[in-house]
């Protein structure tokens, strides 16, 4: 039977008839079908169905779980539109909270807690306290979530009811699923709350780790999240905990794997033994590689997190570089991230293999990716001194293809190579000069012009080359115009006779014919400099041809504090964007390492950005009563 047939307008009256009780409708087949139609229509936002509210409510009492479920879905969907009618359903729902069947108790509990109406909220408080201690674990876990939902809809009501303490009790439940539900509920409440904070002591954390293996995958993710609320007080304790967690790295659920990595990375901040830390972190490699066989979206998140972990621990995947080689049919977001990882993993030992691979990417069809590959080659030249020659050879090989966008991209990166290694690889300038025609992008033009200006005395026809660029001066972007101005001045300083005519022309254009203030100001400054220092060319030279700060690729890597914050957020969006949470979402809670005698002193946490008393203490802060040494999780 197809629900699709159920969409027919003007059906409300007809459906009402079908819902009427009828002795012939023995297994409620007819009414069940009618309800299916109503639910289907509701899903498709056919608001005509709201007319049937009283008729649907009449069916709640029928002795069929499936019918009940559909009535409840209806109720949840329309309760806000018809609160007074919804309230009428309350007595029946409350009756069901005492049903013999745990499934029905749980179902009705879940339904009531999903309805954010004051009458429902208030009516739930008392039974909820009882259901948190229900003999059936399925009901207890539903009750735990019920408290979180009730809190979201009426926080003060929950806080004065003592229900939070009730959930707290679930943390010592004999059933692991109930424990994790309790934790998830507390996590949810404390996440949204200003005043409350989860804190877990060693004994309790240790018990959570113990029950981890008996939980389903999602429960494991909640327990792993809440373990971040445990602050190790002793390095040995932190190490033991990390050791015991590491089997979770072999779970088939990717969110369990990344959740485990997050907790272990967090714990490493409290472990003093470096060798032990390295040993732990090394275990991340293989599971991360295995995630690369998952769907693209999951692969992407895994790769972004690899990137983050590699910044801190570059050696963990050193031997696996090939698994990050791109396939032409990978989506661009995967390719781009793999490329960044390849760049991070590059070293003197594997540089030749990597350059062969990057050279291959530079002949792909996807222009965006080709450009990224060429850039990566240029950056490698700067990153690994010993490999610069190979990188330049590869770039020259690419320039020889004479494909316009490759030549342009190569020009840009070669400029950076000149900045890193001044006066070293000038022989390649002549190759670049042969390809001036193919430059039509501002960035590439500006880069080439910079090279000409910088090496004006060594390029035989530098004046002619600049003159050619100057031909279109007025049409260029400001970036190119500024580059031309500076390069012409440099030419004049190095070869006054050849540059004299050009420099006058450019200064005139820059000061008289432009409405761009930057260009005009710079033009005037050069002009004054050249005219006032005319007697002392050395001063002008010192100013214009000064030594530039050397460049490195380090500026691309994250600073220690950001890295630390990101590593506490492994798996979250901020680890995907590689940006601190506060930059992505304003007002979100920033994670930081809690002070403890075991906390390793690093540059980033020497002065803690947040004082320990940052979160106002709430009476029930220590859900796990850490003070008593906490044997709370045992019976």
């Amino acid at each position: 039977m197809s629900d699709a047939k159920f969409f027919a307008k003007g059906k409300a009256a007809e459906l009402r008839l079908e819902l009427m009780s009828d002795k012939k409708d023995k297994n409620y087949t007819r009414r069940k079908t009618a309800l299916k139609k109503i639910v289907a229509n509701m899903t498709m936002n056919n608001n005509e169905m709201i007319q049937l509210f009283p008729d649907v409510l009449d069916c709640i009492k029928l002795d069929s779980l499936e019918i009940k479920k559909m009535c409840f879905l209806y109720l949840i969907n329309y309760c806000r539109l018809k609160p007074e009618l919804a309230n009428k359903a309350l007595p029946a729902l409350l009756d069901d909270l005492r049903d013999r069947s745990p499934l029905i108790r749980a179902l009705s509990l879940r339904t009531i807690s999903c309805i954010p109406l004051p009458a429902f909220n208030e009516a739930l408080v008392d039974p909820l306290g009882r259901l948190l201690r229900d003999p059936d674990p399925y009901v207890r876990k539903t009750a735990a979530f019920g408290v979180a939902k009730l809190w979201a809809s009426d926080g003060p009501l929950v806080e004065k009811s003592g229900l939070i303490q009730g959930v707290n009790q679930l943390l010592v439940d004999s059933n692991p699923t109930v424990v994790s539900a309790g934790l998830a509920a507390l996590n949810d409440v404390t996440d949204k709350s200003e005043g409350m904070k989860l804190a877990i002591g060693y004994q309790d954390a240790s018990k959570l780790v113990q029950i981890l293996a008996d939980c389903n995958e999602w429960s494991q993710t909640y327990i792993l999240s809440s373990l971040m609320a445990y602050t190790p007080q002793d390095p040995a304790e932190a190490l033991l905990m990390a050791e015991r967690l590491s089997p979770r790295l072999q779970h088939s659920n990717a969110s369990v794997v990344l959740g485990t990595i997050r907790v272990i990375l967090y714990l490493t901040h409290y472990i003093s033994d470096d060798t032990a830390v390295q040993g732990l972190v090394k275990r991340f490699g293989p599971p991360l590689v295995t995630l690369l066989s998952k769907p693209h979206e999951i692969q992407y998140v895994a790769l972004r997190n690899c990137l983050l972990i590699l910044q801190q621990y570059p050696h963990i995947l050193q031997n696996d570089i090939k698994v990050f080689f791109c396939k032409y049919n990978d989506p661009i977001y995967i390719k781009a991230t793999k490329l960044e990882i390849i760049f991070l993993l590059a070293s003197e030992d594997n540089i030749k293999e990597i350059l062969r691979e990057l050279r291959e990417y530079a002949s792909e069809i996807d222009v965006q990716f080709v450009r990224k590959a060429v850039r990566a080659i240029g950056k490698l030249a700067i990153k690994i001194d010993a490999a610069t020659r190979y990188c330049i050879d590869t770039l020259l090989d690419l320039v020889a293809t004479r494909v316009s966008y490759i030549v342009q991209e190569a020009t840009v990166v070669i400029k950076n190579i000149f900045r890193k290694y001044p006066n070293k690889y000038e022989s390649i300038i002549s190759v670049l000069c042969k390809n001036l025609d193919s430059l039509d992008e501002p960035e590439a033009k500006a880069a080439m012009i910079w090279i000409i200006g910088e090496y004006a005395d060594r390029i035989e026809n530098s004046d002619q080359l600049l003159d050619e660029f100057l031909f279109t001066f007025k049409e260029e972007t400001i970036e190119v115009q500024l580059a031309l101005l500076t390069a012409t001045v440099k030419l004049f300083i190095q070869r006054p006779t050849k540059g004299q005519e050009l420099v006058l022309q450019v200064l005139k254009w820059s000061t008289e014919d432009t409405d761009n203030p930057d260009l005009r100001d710079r033009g005037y400054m050069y002009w004054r400099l050249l005219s006032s220092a005319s007697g002392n060319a050395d001063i002008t030279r010192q100013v214009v041809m000064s030594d530039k700060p050397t460049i490195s690729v380090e500026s691309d890597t994250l600073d220690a504090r950001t890295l630390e914050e990101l590593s506490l957020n492994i798996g979250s969006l901020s680890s995907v964007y590689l940006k601190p949470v506060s930059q992505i979402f304003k007002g979100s809670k920033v994670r930081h390492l809690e002070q403890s005698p075991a906390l390793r002193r690093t540059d980033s946490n020497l002065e803690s950005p947040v004082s320990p008393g940052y979160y106002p203490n709430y009476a029930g802060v220590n859900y796990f009563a850490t003070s008593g040494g906490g044997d709370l999780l045992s019976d």
Partner: protein
Amino acid sequence: MSILAVYITDTNGQQLFEYPLSDSPPTNKMLQVALHDASADDVVLRVSSDELLFHRREDTLDFLVPCSSSIPALIPLEFISHLIKVLHDYFQPPLSRPKIEKNYSTIMMLLNEMIEDGYPFVTEENALRDLVPFTDGLSKYLPTLPKGAASSLKSLTSSRLSSKSFSSDSSHMRSNVPWRRSNVKHNNNELYVDIQETLSVIIPAASPMRQLLNSVNGGSNLTASAFYTPAVPQILAEPIVAIAHGSVFTTTKLSGVPDIQLILSFGNRVLEGPAFHPCVRLARWRERPGTLSFVPPDGKCCLLQYTISGVESGPIGGDLKTGLGPMKDEFEVRVWSRVPRNVKFVENLRAEVVFDGERVQNVKGTRASSGEFNIEKKGVGVWRFPGKTPMGWNASLRGTMVVNEELEAGPDGTVPQEFPKYIKISYDCQGMLVSGTKVESLRIVSGKGLDDRAKPYKGVKYLTHGKDIIIRG
């Protein structure tokens, strides 16, 4: 951190199903706007200052899951994977618009169990079958069990959910096998093992230098191995990457609570990052790698996933030559099957010829020694070999790319000839695993509720799925 809603739409963004989980989740319309504005590399979209959208396309449907911003990204992404798996289990793949429309109320009830307070909670198919009536293609809607004894008697005859399982259905949380459906009963006890490996290979372009070197060294020796005898002497480049991603599945239809030990051998290979189903006892594996000891969920389950790199390049080989013919404008693709042990044929063999669709207008003068070659979309020609392809066989395809006339000439005044950029070969090969992985033994250690005389183990199937055998041009 929580899931705010679940939407299922068709690929045009038209809403087929909606399941709100919060007061006012972003509507499908808002999500469609966000998707429309997104660039290709936005896997996770920001819908508003504190809302994210996770999405995935499967079959012909889009699954959209808006979430609050603090959620760990893999939770919704894994949840979508699980949801798709559950829907496949309930309604058979591939999913389609009519299947969704036909089953609104069941999907509603499933999500009602799968998500609790915005968190994924129960996503195991086995546990769900205890909670939500399962309908397969054969039976109609099964009545759910009412609490009255009279009606439950009736339902016993027609339903696979017995009243007993109904009253104890929450006990699965108490048992130490949360992944196994309670009170499993089968008339025919059966157990199958399936091991599948997905093979990805990247073969570099054959440079003239390498060809020369190979011929000096005797060429074909490089490709001969303990496994294969090359059917055609080839001068071949060594693959840069050859990775097998393996999955070990069991399909168990066993009554009671069977405890199983499955021993695998991986030859001398190193298993990288094995990932296990929760039912596998990790301690046993650590004691003796290769030993899977477990109480399985009922039905199909993926016990183990693994990665092995540096494997053989598989039963099918291929190469690409360019610049052939009197005008030096022809290319030739060759594909051949090697002769591995115990394999008689491969199936669904095809070779995609990938070229620059902007620069190439057409492919002319194609001559295929067998199979059929057609341009199927911009930049991709597909060379198909329907049915079974025998071992020790080979085929070749020759042709010339017609360069788009509107292209600008290069600096030397001519438009350069275009050739294929990549060849991508794919196939299925039953009866062998490319890594050489094997089942050593399978034993039912104990089977509470299982007949002692039963010999349920029906054997193992090996399948190598050559997915991306990429030859670079």
